[in-house]
C-alpha cells in the first residue's frame, strides 16, 4: 500500500471522478433539510431558552399532525374540565339545597342552623 500515489495515479483518479455521475434520487426535501442544518449550525450558541423554545414551537406547530394533536388535546382538556367543574358545582348546590329543604321542614335542624 502506497499512501502517497504518484502524479500519474492522481491524474487517472481525476479522470474517474470526472466521469462519475450520481444517479440515485435524493431523499425528499433534501435541499430544505440541508439548509436547515446549515442554519442550525450557524445559529449562535448563546441563544436564550425562550428563543430556542420559540424556534422549536415554530418548527413543530405548523406540522399538520402536531397541530391536529395539539388542538385535540386542548379540546379534550377543556371539555373534561368543563364537565368536572359542572359536576362539582351541581353536587355542591344539590347538597346546599337539600339542607335548606331539611332546615325548612325540621325545626330542630333550623334551630341548629341558626345558632
Amino acid at each position: 500500500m502506497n499512501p502517497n500515489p504518484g502524479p500519474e495515479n492522481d491524474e487517472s483518479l481525476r479522470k474517474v471522478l470526472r466521469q462519475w455521475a450520481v444517479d440515485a434520487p435524493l431523499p425528499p426535501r433534501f435541499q430544505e433539510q440541508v439548509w436547515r442544518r446549515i442554519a442550525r449550525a450557524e445559529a449562535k450558541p448563546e441563544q436564550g431558552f425562550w428563543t430556542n423554545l420559540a424556534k422549536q414551537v415554530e418548527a413543530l406547530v405548523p406540522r399538520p399532525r402536531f397541530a391536529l394533536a395539539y388542538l385535540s388535546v386542548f379540546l379534550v382538556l377543556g371539555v373534561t374540565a368543563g364537565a368536572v367543574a359542572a359536576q362539582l358545582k351541581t353536587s355542591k348546590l344539590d347538597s346546599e339545597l337539600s339542607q335548606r329543604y331539611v332546615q325548612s321542614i325540621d325545626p330542630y335542624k333550623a334551630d341548629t342552623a341558626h345558632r
Partner: protein
Amino acid sequence: MKKSILILLLGCLLGGAGFSGFYYFGTADCRWMMNEPQPELAWLKKEFKLSDAEFARISQLHAAYMPQCAVRCQHIGAQNQKLRELFAQSTNVTPEIQALLTERAKTRADCEAEMMKHFLEVSRTMPPEEGKRYLAWVEEQTFLHGRGMGERHRSEKAGQTPDEHHM
C-alpha cells in the same frame, strides 16, 4: 411564526369553548333551580323526578305546612329560652322546671307528629318508588334518624366506641 401563533391561539380558544360549553350545559339545572322562587322545592322536584302536577301539589302542602312550623319553632324557642333562664337561677329541678320540661316534651312530640304527617303526605303525592325514597331520605336527614343516645349505649354494651360501631 404567524401560523404557529394562530394554531396555538386556536387551541386555547377550542379548550375555552369546550370548557364553557360543557360547564354551561352541565349547570343548566343549577340555574333553573336558583331562578325558582323556592330553590329548595325546585331541588325536590329535580331529585325526586316530580311531574308539574305533583310539584304543584307538594308546593301547596309545603306552603300550608310552613306557617304552622314557624309557630311551633317560636313556641319551642320560647320554651328553650325560659328553661335556660330557670336553669340559670336554680340549684335543683324545681316543680316549675319539671312542668316546663313536660310541656316542652309535649310541644316537641306534637311538632314531630306534624312533621311525620307532612312527610307522609308529601311521599303519598310522589310516584310510589320516589315516595319511598323520599321517606328513607327524610328519615336519614331529620330527627327520625335518632343519632346519639340509642347507638351510643348499644356501642357501650358491645364494648365499642361509637365510631367502631359504625364501621
